[in-house]
């Protein structure tokens, strides 16, 4: 019999994990919204950022989060360049399919470079607060999970404010919703889409650093992440950031709760079950809708 305390603890941990997934999936759904790009290299970039965070903290002894000062602008730049010189050159009619191949290739390149730079050895960050936890209403919550969640929540809130309140956010949404009309009100849609890509990749930088706190990393790990993240954005409705966030919270929580009876490997299947159910029952996703219908 599962105790109420264990259930409660799992619920909290599930929500914390879901929050992190929400950030990791946000970038993925943003790329799709911008130009129907399936970005298979997203998780590889998350992993790259996690490696940089690990490498930074193990060589300097400083907190891995400080590496974000460099990785956020760097990833933004890489995203912009990648859009401008690779993705924007794909033909619109075959964009989705070709982007899968292109970004698959990019993921392999990143994986190769990671192996080259830091070998295939498993790495883990050692933090002063790495094993401590706080008690919350009888549940034991690891500090690292709270830190990752806080980072994710902060980034998602910033993303929301950027999209809703800034002129750049408005022009990005306009570009997503009607590219030609956006051009006709004077928006440089190519540049804005490139910056949108940069923004998506910047979320991968933050997500990677947050993940590095609690994950043991090795170069091929990103293949384990991209599947669940893809499932999340389909369930949430392709292109919808709020949809992805809700789906991530829900699936993350269910996943952790299922670990109690099923163990971690089987619990992971919740993402794929949710994916199949969504495709069968409501292919446009549960919270997004319109974008997927246009697809």
């Amino acid at each position, binding site marked *: 019999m599962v105790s109420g305390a264990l259930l409660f603890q799992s619920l909290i941990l599930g929500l914390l994990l879901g929050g992190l997934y929400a950030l990791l999936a946000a970038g993925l759904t943003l790329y799709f919204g911008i130009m129907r790009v399936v970005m298979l290299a997203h998780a590889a970039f998350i992993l790259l950022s996690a490696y940089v965070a690990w490498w930074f903290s193990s060589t300097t002894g400083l907190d891995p989060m400080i590496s974000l000062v460099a990785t956020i602008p760097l990833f933004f730049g890489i995203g912009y360049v990648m859009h401008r010189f690779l993705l924007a050159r794909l033909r619109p009619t075959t964009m989705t399919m070709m982007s899968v191949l292109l970004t698959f290739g990019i993921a392999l390149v990143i994986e190769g470079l990671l192996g080259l730079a830091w070998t295939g050895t498993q790495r883990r960050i050692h933090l002063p607060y790495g094993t401590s936890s706080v008690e919350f209403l009888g549940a034991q919550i690891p500090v690292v999970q709270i830190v990752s969640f806080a980072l994710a929540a902060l980034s998602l809130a910033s993303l929301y404010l950027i999209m809703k309140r800034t002129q750049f956010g*408005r022009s990005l949404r306009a570009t997503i919703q009607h590219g030609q*009309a956006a051009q*006709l009100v004077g*928006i440089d849609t190519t540049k804005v889409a490139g910056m949108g890509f940069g923004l998506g990749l910047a979320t991968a930088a933050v997500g990677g650093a947050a993940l590095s706190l609690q994950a043991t990393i090795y170069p091929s790990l990103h293949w384990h992440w991209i599947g669940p993240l893809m499932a999340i954005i389909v369930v949430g409705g392709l292109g919808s950031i709020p949809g992805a966030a809700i789906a991530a919270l829900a699936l993350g929580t269910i996943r952790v709760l299922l670990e109690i009876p099923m163990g971690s490997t089987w619990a992971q299947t919740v993402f794929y079950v949710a994916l199949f159910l969504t495709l069968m029952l409501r292919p446009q996703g549960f919270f997004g809708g319109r974008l997927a219908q246009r697809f």
Partner: protein
Amino acid sequence: MSDETGPVAEPPVDGDDVVLRLVDVQAGYGKAALVLRGFSVEVRRGEIVCLVGPNGAGKSTVLKVASGLLAVRSGSVWLNGEDATGAKPQDLLRRGLSHVLQGHSVFREMTVEENVMLGGYTVADRTALLDRVEFVKGVFPVVAERWSTTAGLLSGGQQKQVEFARALMVRPDVVLLDEPSMGLDPKRTAGMFEQVARLREAGVAVLLVEQNARRALEMSDIGCVLDLGRVFVRGPAQELLADPQLSDLYLGGRPAAS
């Protein structure tokens, strides 16, 4: 501006008040056959030029070329006496051209306010912008009434009015209207035509594409029939209306005896 666009470019004569001029334009999509095969048109200050022609004739393509959404293969585009061939839409907008697309082009998941304000994306002067908002709210009451509504939730005709409002946020010298009456009820259609007439009085040049060809020609100065990528016939709108052959071919038969 630049004179490297080739020999076909023929700059407007000094002192003439042509706002928009397309000269011998060839254009098409991708590798498909050309849609426009040597098309020319000019629109003067305070003049309405109405473009009619069958579905697929290339009317929308003409407007896309004029607003820079589609590049010409050859030929040239002139705006306010300056060469604008190959210019980007943003650039043409700053130089006084605004284009309302065929069908629906509101930003569906944004509010009416965000849509209208984005119309003034290139307007830096805040007070001018707010003046302009008052102006479009006066012209299109629905904009004022549904200011905070998500645009995609408005009816088709209401969305169309938001699109006009958005296009009028800059003070354009020339407006391209692609089937503006589509989806409007008779009263709004009349109102829309009235707005177009008012634009003319304000000295704006209008290039109009209309399914409602007879009605549109009645209020236009110049009519231009487009077929097979070329100008089939051009002339004062009243003369086109009076031509029985054109009526049969392009204007949906003769008007009911009146």
